[in-house]
């Protein structure tokens, strides 16, 4: 997205608590021949700490893309988004929202938090696999 070619594998942060979805995503990435460093967090509290670069995440580099499930337990996904945008390092990180519902409230968040893509969790395998190319596209590859 920045235009400059990367000479490393892109770092992708996935905040998702459903392992089924996580595995499917991995499958989608491999189907799309998309290689990346995938960090998965299944806890909202941890996610919040990460984007705030607190504790053990203090030195962690921000990812090139964040995929966020808004229905994460413990916290409201939007809280995480807000924290991201509040934190200078994470403010520019492109975010794709990955959600099972598409309430207008959540859609409105797209505007507010500059979300690049709103991906509704598909229930069809074909559709799901397409997410791989979507992510590739988002990372400019």
């Amino acid at each position: 997205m920045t235009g400059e070619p990367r000479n490393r594998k892109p770092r992708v942060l996935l905040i998702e608590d459903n392992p089924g979805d996580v595995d499917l995503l991995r499958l989608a990435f491999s189907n799309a021949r998309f290689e990346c460093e995938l960090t998965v967090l299944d806890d909202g509290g941890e996610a919040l700490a990460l984007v705030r670069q607190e504790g053990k995440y203090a030195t962690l580099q921000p990812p090139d893309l964040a995929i966020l499930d808004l229905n994460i337990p413990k916290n409201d996904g939007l809280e995480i988004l807000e924290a991201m945008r509040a934190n200078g390092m994470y403010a520019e990180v492109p975010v794709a929202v990955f959600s099972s519902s598409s309430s207008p409230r959540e859609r409105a968040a797209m505007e507010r938090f500059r979300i690049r893509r709103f991906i509704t969790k598909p229930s069809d395998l074909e559709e799901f696999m397409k997410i791989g190319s979507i992510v590739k596209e988002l990372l400019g590859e």
Partner: protein
Amino acid sequence: MNGRTRISEIGRFRRLPLQRKLMVVIMATTAAALVLSGISILIFDSVLFRGYLERDLSTLADITADNSTAALSFEDPHAASETLGALRARTHVVTACIYRRNGSVLATYHRAGTSSACPDNEVIQTIHITGADMTLVRPIMLNNRRIGTLTMLYDLRELYDRLRLYGATVLFLLLSSSLLALMLSSRLSAIIATPISQLVQTTTAISETKDYSVRAAKFSADELGVLVDTFNDMLAGIQTRDNELREALLTREQALEDAQNARDFLRTTLTSIGDAVISTDVDGCVVFANRVAQGLLRLPESELTGRRLDDVFSLIHEFDRKPVESPLSKVLREPDHVTSLTDTVLIAGDGTEMPIDNSVAPIRGDGGSIHGMVLVFRDTSARRRAIETSRLLASIVESSGDAIIGYDLNGRITSWNSGAENMFGYCAVEMTGSSTSAIALAGQDEMPGVLQRICRGERIDQYQGVRRTKAGKVMDVSVTVSPIYDALGRIVGASQIARDTTEQVRAASRLAELNADLQRSNERLARSNEDLERFAFIASHDLQEPLRMITLYSQLLVKQYPAELADQAEACISNIVGGTKRMRELLADLLAFTEIGGRPEDPPKPVDLNLVVQKVKENLKASIEETGAEVTADPLPVLVVNDSHFVSLFQNLIGNALKYRSGNAPRIHISLSETGAQLRFAVADNGSGIAPQYHDKIFVAFKRLHGKSIPGTGIGLAICQRVVQRYGGRIWVESQVGQGSTFIFTLPDIRYAEGAVNDRRTS
């Protein structure tokens, strides 16, 4: 011409004023006298003078002749010339000649400066006048013998000169006398004329001003004086008579005026009287009927005066309707009696009847004789109505079921109706004069305070009070207290109307309790509904996730291990997938259904239904193309709604029409009409139709009429109904098997109006 001039002259003369006339007369007389005398003097004088002159000259001639006898006899011319020369003294002698007997001239004399020949002595005449001179011839005699002739030529100029002189003098005298006469006459004629003209002025003035007190001035004691005196006497007489006349006139006018005033006063009085007044003469004919009488009898004055009273005024008894004796005959019969009658009914000219009171009295003249009768009457209908009304009101009070109690200003009971008797158990006799404390609870008598406020003019609203009956029972009452006014608007008391409200009070509190219960159950219900909806929402929402997993991984299984799986396994998985798919559909529909309950974050906003239909057609694009369907619509309005609801509504209706098609390509049309304040939408198709017995069932959630042959969960129409009901409308179907279906739904007019605040919260 002459005659006319004369007449006009006479006329002119007649018109001259008196003084002028006098002057003219005097002048004329004087002039005539003067002229006459002048002329006669002139003539007389001239004649006289001539005679004198003749005589004189004759004498001179004789003397000269005598004197010249000597000269002649002695033939002495010298002496003759001397003798003739004495004629020098008479200047007018021009020539004188002495002739001898033979006619020759002895001596001549000529006046100095003249030389004229001797006159011819042949002329024998003694005197011969020729023009301006006179010739005398005298014979000169001696002893009676003529010895010669003397001729004298005399210049008559003297005569003529004298005549001229005379004439001029006379003329001069004439003129100066005339002038003098003029002056004198103008002065002196005034003596006569002035008194006369004064008199004329006076009379003119009097006749103009009619001022008979003026008197003419007396200037002289002659006939004019007498005239003036008699004139003045006459004036005096006229003046006196005039004054007398004037006085008499004034008196008469005054009398007339008085009479008129009196008449007007009486007339006004009679007209202003509020009662009807009719007066008749002694024969009973109407003489006067005032306005009120005319009105009551419904007859104009013209039809009353002169008519017999009995013809226009007929009375009957109120109750037995028999005629009443005519007032006239009554009065004539009993003239000392003033009769009054009540309970009589008058029949007016047009037949209307009215109750009247009347009284009749005779009109007496100075001698006590009866001149007529005066009848006074009035319409008593108003009074009777008032009496009736008050009786009516009294009976209303008496018959009222409420207690009506009257108070005076001191709080003492003045009236107590039967309603009060029944309510409180005390009878009117007991309560009249008592105070209000009898029916009040101990220490809770609010009436004295209320009465005080009433007396101050305050308004008392209806209030709830408590009373105690004679038996001791306590009751709730609704009390209204109002002031009682007299005719002048002053407050003279109060009236209390009390109604037993014990039952009502009890009912009211029961009602309040029930209301409270209802309120509570409503709240419980609402909460329970909320919970259910939330539950349904959450359930369907959360159930989706696991389902999704099952679906995906089942698919994955099939995809990844096609070879390894046996056919049966594939069939099993197929069924799993099918089941999950079905479950997903059901859950999705259930979710959609519960969402119609309305999420607070989606407020209604203006939604163009045309765009909704477009969107639906997009969503159903595949199906429309596949079936070759044609979906048309009337122009649809903009409604203030939640757009997803209407997307669901139309999508379900159109989707159904596509699903339940007949053999033909589906033709679906959406129409709109307005009926009163409602919008009526219709979605008509040419599908397979629905048998009437299922027209209601199809709207039941999950109720289907078809099996697996046609996909669907059966929630579509339930969703449609829920949407329509949510916005306050109704939905139903008109259909027959094989004749297509028309789904009709109505909505209240929730169209978007520019500028209007459309905040509808429908249930």
